[in-house]
């Protein structure tokens, strides 16, 4: 009986949290402010911003869908869709405006259950502390990266998230062959379009409320990478930062411009690097 009550309470809590998130949560938007063209014509572009939909470590499927959970939480449900789709759309607008990349104006969701991912050599994943893979998925992602694909991971914070991230990552790229290294100011990835020298920690939207640039114990931003045998970055790791939120809330007057600018410049340099190396 006690157990049934507990389940009921948890269920009610989850439902109320979802409703709360739906109607605002910490912050939300209902309609993306950027106009997108999803016509078949607009699909025919060179670059598509591809967001990786993965299995959550504690869920049985891909979890929920973007737009339902914002700010904290989401770890156990629909983690891949954090900030989706506004972050993607705003970033694409910047990419189209600031570069000569022929980019589609709206995002693409890819997963590791089909070979379709091989048509998108750049892929973005968030909240990767929760990711996990089946053996087939891990193999497909490894092959994707070794053939020339590029993975950018973002929005995970602190020691525990890092450990969880590694658990999933090492299913794909074993540690002995693919060590993780820190990116320095001199690394080419920070100089393809913008010369990014002084890098700052880019906080999530929670900064507006808390004034903290970090989450959990992720006090120091970690710009890290995994390289292939030719020294080219194949996985760009943005740990202890939340670039996605910075793109998503770039049009919020309360979110500091310097964070948004840094996030755009880093994101564009990463895309440029993925298309040149």
């Amino acid at each position, binding site marked *: 009986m006690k157990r049934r009550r507990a389940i009921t309470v948890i269920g009610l809590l989850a439902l109320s949290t979802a409703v709360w998130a739906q109607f605002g949560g910490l912050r939300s938007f209902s309609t993306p402010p950027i106009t997108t063209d999803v016509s078949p014509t607009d699909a025919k572009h*060179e670059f598509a911003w591809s967001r990786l939909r993965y299995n959550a470590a504690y869920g049985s499927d891909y979890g929920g869908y973007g737009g339902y959970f914002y700010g904290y939480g989401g770890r156990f449900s629909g983690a891949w869709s954090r900030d989706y789709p506004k972050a993607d759309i705003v970033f694409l607008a910047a990419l189209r405006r600031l570069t*000569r990349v022929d980019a589609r104006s709206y995002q693409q969701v890819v997963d590791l259950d089909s070979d379709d991912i091989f*048509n998108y050599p750049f892929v973005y994943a968030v909240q990767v502390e929760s990711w996990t893979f089946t053996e087939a998925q891990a193999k497909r992602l490894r092959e*994707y990266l070794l053939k020339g694909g590029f993975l950018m991971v973002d929005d995970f914070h602190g020691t525990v998230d890092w450990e969880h991230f590694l658990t999933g990552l090492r299913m794909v790229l074993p540690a002995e062959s693919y060590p993780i290294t820190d990116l320095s100011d001199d690394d080419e990835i920070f100089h393809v379009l913008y010369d990014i020298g002084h890098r700052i920690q880019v906080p999530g939207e929670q900064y507006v409320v808390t004034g903290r640039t970090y989450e959990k114990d992720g006090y120091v931003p970690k710009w890290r990478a995994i390289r292939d045998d*030719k020294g080219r970055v194949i996985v760009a790791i943005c740990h202890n930062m939340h670039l996605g939120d910075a793109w998503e809330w770039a049009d919020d007057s309360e979110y500091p411009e310097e964070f948004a600018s840094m996030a755009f410049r880093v994101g564009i340099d990463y895309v*440029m690097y993925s298309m040149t190396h």
Partner: protein
Amino acid sequence: MFQWLFKFPRAVFARGELVFLSSWPTWALLLACLVGAAALAAVIIRQLPPGAARAHRARAAVIWLLQSALVSLLLVLLWQPALSVSQLKSQQNIVAFLIDDSRSMRLEDEGASREAEAVATLQGGVLDAVARRFQVRLYRLDQGIARIDGLKELRAEGAATHLSAGLRELAAETAGLPLGAVVLLSDGSDNGTGVDAEALAPLRERHIPVHTVGFGRERARQDVELDDVELGARALADARVAAVVRFHQYGYAGRQTRLSVRDAGKVLASMPVSLEADGTEQSQRVLFDVGAAGVKSLQFALDLLPGEENGSNNALSRLLDVDADQRSVLYVEGEPRWEYKFIRRAADDDRMLRLVSMLRTSENKIYRQNVRDPGELAQGFPTRAPELFAYQGLVIGSVEASYFTPAQQQLIRQFVDRRGGGLLLLGGRYALADGGWGAAGLADLLPTILPDAHDTFHVDPATVELTEVGADSPITRLTDDAASNIQRWKKLPYLMDYQDAGVPKAGASVLANLNADGRQMPLLVTEPYGRGRTAVLATSGTWRWQMSLPLGDPSFDTYWQQLLRWLVTDAHGPVVASVERPEIHDDGHALLAAEVRDADYELVADAAVEAHVLGPNGLAARLPMQPVWDAPGQYLLEWQAPQAGDYLTEVVATRRGQPLGRDVVYFRRLDGVAENFHTEQNRALLERIATLTGGRYWRPRELSRLADEIDLSSAGISARESRELWDMPAVLLLLLGLPMLEWLVRRLWGVV
């Protein structure tokens, strides 16, 4: 029989000139014959009854023919026919016997060596018969001639046979002597520079006939012989190179053997070969990886088959200079594209390619990759020839033609036309027709006529297929076998996009087509242009091959590395040296050539060009090369390599003390190798020598008439004499035979 009927040997008729000794003019003879025939015709016609049957008239015509022939013969005899021939004066002329003394004369055909057969033939009365009328000189012939006192001095040890050189030497040695004829005894196995009218000119001018006597079988019973190997002189390191091996065989039709390529004993390629009909010249292409840089002495060999008569003609060697100099390709891209990234990655995996790129990342920024120093391309696309000509290849991606100034467009043209570089245009939003290239000044540079339209670029899938030309092209070769290659290309994943590249120009080669939207269009088209080459690849979507094929599949990298290598392999530096024959057999005569250009790749006629030769046993020589007066920029050097071995020659060009460039070539002198090849009697060559000089080709058993034939020569000290023909037995037979024949037909037809 001939001489019995016609009184004189055939040669007298062949060499003599028909004359009439009578003082009456020849036209009078013709007139008399005509009058006689007409008179006979008039008499016969008058005797024909009116309305005679057709058969009757035909018989009368035959009778008229026989009577006219008899009358004409009598008239000819009245004019005293004779043959005017030149005849050598007895004991006043020299006859030179040149006996092939090379190693091929050691070969045994019918139990005795060719040399022994030649000696036996001469000693069997031929020499004596000639010596009775002429002075006889004996010469040994191999790479030159040497006079000998007797046939015992022959050894058959010469490393080569140079018939042309030997005959020229003989002509020079006997320049002031009454040389009446030359008798050349040989198997015709010439391995010199060949024998032609020019080589025989000194003898022809003196009307000296060369009588050739052939020894040896005209075809082997059981032998496989490698005739030639076609292989370029240079290749880039790590290249996959094709050589064409030509060979023929006797006695092994339908059998199989194995063709192999070795480098210092290491097998580079080995493949089975089916032998075709006897005497058929076969050719077989063989592909192999040349490996690291350096000069390679490659041996091409066909396995020895059981019972082969000659085991020394199954292998040939060729020198291949494998170049270690990295080639630079400039890739200009107008927008970030996946194709750009993956092309770069493919080039990164080829250590012989340096792909330097400039990419327009935003409207006002250019991102450069793989530059040697910060100054390279810092000002954008080169505006001066030396800057652009430092590259060997140029790839232009999604860039409008108008991005280049008119001066830069002119520079691109010169890059291909004059510098000899390779230009590749890719498909894209701003490429080809959509980029205004069809209307640009460089349109004639392209291998296709671009469509006069916009929106020719489509981000839609397209499949690819090779053409017959592409199946065997070094650019599109994913597997060695052409048929398999076609299948392999059909299985490639679809392209991400395509562009209508228009219609291929005459002279262009379409290597691959694409299928999209229910149409077939050219995908990869190449064309030579000036000293260089151009290509169009009407897509920017081949990167999908890399991402969609299984991990480790080399198709994408191989294709792009081969395409980029094709762009640059034949784009040489300002000084290009070459040698006429990389393998010089026996005579050591080397002909070096150099083409010299300046930094703008203009030909330089006033350069100082020197060849620094390093040879075997520490040989070193610095030799000036001479300009060719009617070919500016061309320089030549004829040189005699003194001994067998490998020679390295560095050609250095300067102008007014300033260096223009250098190049290195290799050649090898091989002594005694050529004599192992073409060991069958080369009767065709011997017959040609005889025909060109007015002599005759003889079989050894026919030589009993040689002295008579030699007698009839206009060379040396000779006199012209007339030999009357009226008393030939054949004439008497005709005089009797014609009336008898007429009588017989009259009897037969009852018209007596």
